[in-house]
């Protein structure tokens, strides 16, 4: 069991998403003999170096062949193993998409497909390595649970819960080393149960992955401008926690979704799919990655360029409120 405290959170943050994923999975393997880790020759990149050393029998490198990896994972899962299969987001969610559909979706086999480096954290490696459409693809496959942890502590929570969870899942890791922390103490985590991190009376910001932290930052800036924001960590994108969403939207003047994913098919789409049929619903601003292959750069630079850091999220929300002719003064 990995304890969430300030010190660990700081350490994990330095280590980054992938490293912490590897630590958490290694930790889980100690308690779950039925757990296996598969990698398509990205074991070290997936933070699984230590796992391989400690549990060589529970690890398999399938070679650079993601489609086969998912099929092998399906076969192992069919025979009772809980299999974590990892690769970079596009290689698992798109190259092996149909294997995910057959094995995890159609047959509901107990495989956790883990996308490392999703979003744009791969920076200068370029769009070939970005996960900008993965949620869109994975979310549309029946039977899949889709999870996007907010920070390294939540990656620990997710892995621990996924090691106990029987069923197919897509786990999307965003952020890199120096991943900012949302959580520095233990908390209750349950798939499908969103977490309200901040309550405000004016607007509701629904975020996932790295954008939870940035949304909290944005909320601070907005508060200084007299806009009081609720912030919800929607770590599970499917099934969507509509109860928490309903509560967050009570009396709100606008809903804003923020995600490190294309605005097509991700969290913004999930929320709007839910809200669209409602007679009474707040205006919705969907903040995320644009529908294009952007010029590559370093991660922080790109987040800034694309308007995904706290201050520019606050600015976008402010402009949106003005455009609605709903400026809020304190």
């Amino acid at each position, binding site marked *: 069991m990995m304890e969430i405290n300030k010190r660990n959170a700081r350490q994990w943050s330095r280590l980054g998403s992938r490293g912490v994923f590897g630590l958490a999975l290694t930790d889980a393997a100690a308690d779950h003999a039925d757990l296996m880790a598969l990698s398509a020759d990205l074991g070290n990149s997936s933070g699984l170096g230590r796992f391989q050393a400690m549990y060589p029998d529970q690890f*398999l490198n399938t*070679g650079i062949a993601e*489609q086969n990896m998912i099929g*092998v994972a399906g*076969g192992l899962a069919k025979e009772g193993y809980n299999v974590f299969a990892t690769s970079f987001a596009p290689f698992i969610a798109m190259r092996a998409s149909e*294997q995910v559909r057959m094995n995890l979706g159609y047959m509901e086999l107990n495989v956790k497909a883990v996308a490392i480096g999703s979003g744009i954290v791969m920076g200068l490696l370029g769009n070939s390595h970005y996960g900008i459409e993965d949620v869109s693809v994975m979310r549309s496959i029946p039977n899949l649970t889709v999870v996007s942890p907010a920070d390294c502590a939540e990656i620990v929570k997710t892995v621990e819960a996924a090691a106990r969870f029987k069923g197919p899942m897509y786990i999307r890791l965003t952020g890199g080393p120096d991943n900012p922390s949302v959580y520095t103490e233990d908390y209750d985590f349950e798939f499908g149960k969103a977490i309200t991190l901040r309550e405000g009376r004016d607007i509701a910001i629904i975020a996932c992955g790295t954008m939870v932290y940035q949304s909290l930052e944005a909320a601070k800036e907005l508060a200084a401008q007299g806009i009081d924001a609720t912030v919800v960590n929607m770590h599970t994108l499917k099934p969507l926690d509509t109860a928490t969403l309903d509560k967050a939207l009570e009396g709100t003047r606008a809903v804003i979704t923020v995600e490190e994913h294309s605005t097509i098919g991700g969290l913004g789409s999930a929320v709007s799919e839910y809200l669209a049929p409602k007679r009474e619903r707040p205006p919705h601003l969907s903040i995320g990655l644009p529908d294009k292959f952007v010029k590559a750069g370093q991660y922080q630079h790109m987040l800034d360029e694309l308007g995904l850091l706290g201050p520019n999220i606050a600015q976008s929300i402010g402009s949106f409120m003005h455009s609605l002719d709903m400026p809020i003064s304190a």
Partner: protein
Amino acid sequence: MNISEIENMASFMRRKIIDISYECGVTAHLGGGLSMVDIMAVLYGHILRFDKKDPRWEDRDRFILSKGHGVLGYYPALLAAGIISEEVFKTFKANGSDLIAHPVMNLDLGIESSNGSLGQGLSMGIGIALAARRKTRMFKTYIYLGDGECNEGSVWEAAMLAGQLKLSSLTAIIDHNGLQSDGESNQIIDNSNIAERFASFGWDVVSIDGHNVPEIVAAFDQRFQTGKPKAIIARTVKGKGISFMENDNAWHHNRLTRKTYDEALECLGVPATAEG
């Protein structure tokens, strides 16, 4: 089962294929189903270990129909083996049936996996065989592939890994009928050297006549080199047993009329006046 019992089982299966294809009233993958019959009769009549009263028996051998459109060679084998009932069998292609044009995983009916998207069965087979190895269980895993299916790159991803892992409890059967959906395989992707391909990926390979029951039995019974997965390249005839369907790709996916049904029965030596 002895050889003549297996041959009788194959005859029974062919009759069932023709009956059910006619009775379902819609198109069915006749050609590729008929090419499988003798091999499937050997598997379900002689090779596979299963408990028809308990299809979930943990130590059963695993069979996966990777060429998922070959259900007409599969469901009649499950029927002949007593794993599914005549009542269930009759639901073939009825609305909402468990027995549709591609297998849908249903362990109670002895169906191990859902297939239909080609090139995926061998990967799952590796996972199953690995699980058996890890758990030191003795069951074996059999994957039935089409030769056209071997166009899929994922087949070769799996072939490489199975060779690398030396999965000797894994057997692939390649139904080498030389035809695929759009025509002759050697005009599309020539696979005449498919045996050499598997061998070069680290498999133990035997090539046989896929309609000669003693030869099929010998291939399965033969002790292969240990430490290698086995590939049985079975030369087959698409549409085998129904002369007007044999090697005619019009019967890859087609519908039987009353007239062609009667003609098919005649090929099987059943009087044309037989009740439909």
